[in-house]
């Protein structure tokens, strides 16, 4: 639960509060568990709801709530320039880069990505947790991965720029 909260909010203090709140909900509502799904699924659903409620409260008025939590596939989905040279990620990205990029994802993408690729839930379980369809879960996951790819490529380019700058500065100082 803590890992899920931490990856969804990216902040240890908030993650601790949210985990505590989720456990309190668990104790208060344990009598409502009917066994229709696995207990872990029920627990994670409760946790995701607690986190999403907190994120809804924190959403800036200028941001569209729907776009933040469930970005529309047509309007805000990541675009891929077919002709642009892609930077290969393999060998250039480490875990720190990846986790930092995950934090930058919109909450809706982030939730599905963490539940599927990190926690190992299947799409039908994610649909149960998130209260969406299986197709929606698959779509969100694909968009999350695509967006992460863009963020990681930006990070690689940024690192390359920094290294070039550092090299220029060093060679300039030697002259």
């Amino acid at each position, binding site marked *: 639960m803590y*890992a899920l909260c931490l990856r969804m909010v990216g902040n240890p203090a908030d993650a601790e509060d949210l985990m*505590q709140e989720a456990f*309190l909900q668990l104790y208060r509502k344990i009598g409502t568990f009917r066994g229709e799904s696995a207990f872990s699924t029920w627990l994670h659903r409760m946790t995701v709801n607690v986190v999403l409620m907190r994120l809804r409260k924190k959403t800036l008025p200028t941001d569209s709530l729907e776009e933040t939590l469930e970005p529309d596939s047509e309007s805000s989905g990541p675009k891929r320039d077919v002709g642009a040279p*892609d930077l*290969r990620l*393999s060998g250039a990205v480490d875990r720190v880069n990846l986790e930092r990029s995950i934090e930058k994802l919109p909450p809706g993408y982030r939730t599905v990505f963490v539940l599927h*690729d990190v926690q190992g839930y299947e799409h039908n379980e994610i649909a149960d947790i998130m209260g969406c369809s299986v197709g929606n879960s698959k779509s969100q996951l694909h968009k999350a991965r695509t967006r992460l790819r863009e963020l990681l490529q930006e990070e690689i380019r940024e690192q390359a720029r920094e290294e070039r700058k550092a090299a220029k500065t060093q060679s300039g100082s030697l002259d």
Partner: protein
Amino acid sequence: MQCKDLELVVESEGLVLLTSEAREHLTLCPACRGFVSDLEFIAAAARAIPAEIEPPAHVWTSLRAQLEAEGLIKEPVTALEGVPSRIWPRWFGLRSLITATAGAALLAAVLLLTHTPVAPRAPAAGTPAQAPVQTNDSAPSPLAAPPAAPAPSLAALSVPKAAFSAKRHSSGPTASRIKELAPSPSEDAGTTFAPSPVDQDFPDMELAGNSQVDASLRQNLRTLNEFIAECERHLKENPHDQLAREYLYTAYQQKADLLATMMDSARSEH
């Protein structure tokens, strides 16, 4: 197949189950090949991220405090920590058995007193000064002789002796006699149960006119004594076990009541 078609396939089917058309396109399109390769790398890297992270210890402390404050959890009863599991259910079983047998013995004694005519018997041992019971000559007459040692288990307990004797509904001398007859704890906690002094006191004495009631009373007493011995053994090993002390106190009370009943019924036959 076009690049955008491939992307739709990847979106709906994932990275594992690509169609033959999609695989064929990948062999021909390096951009799409790179795209799929990057997504596979991201998925693999995410799987390597630990799914579980242990939260800081203070989170659990804070959570527990909040749960207790809301009354959702309560402090567990710690009195029986260390009690072997074989003893605990046995105590429960024994306790209800003792209660039931004591009640049955009491009822039997009451019925006996009210319905069954009996012949006069030898004088009951109301006081230590009385003459020994006219029983088998070879049997000892411990009634006249006080037990060699007092009941240190009673003294060891923080049970007020006044409360113990006050529970008796009979006269004072009977209560003090009962105290004398209470078994002393054996020095070795592991020793087996020794015959009750009452069994020695009343080897052949008829406690009631009905031999069945008599046997029942003795059996009840033996059961009580076994339970008391077990409690005392446990308390020797766990002197701070308050619940065990309560059980022992209750058992002594029940024994006192039972002995009083037995003596009253025996005395009333005269």
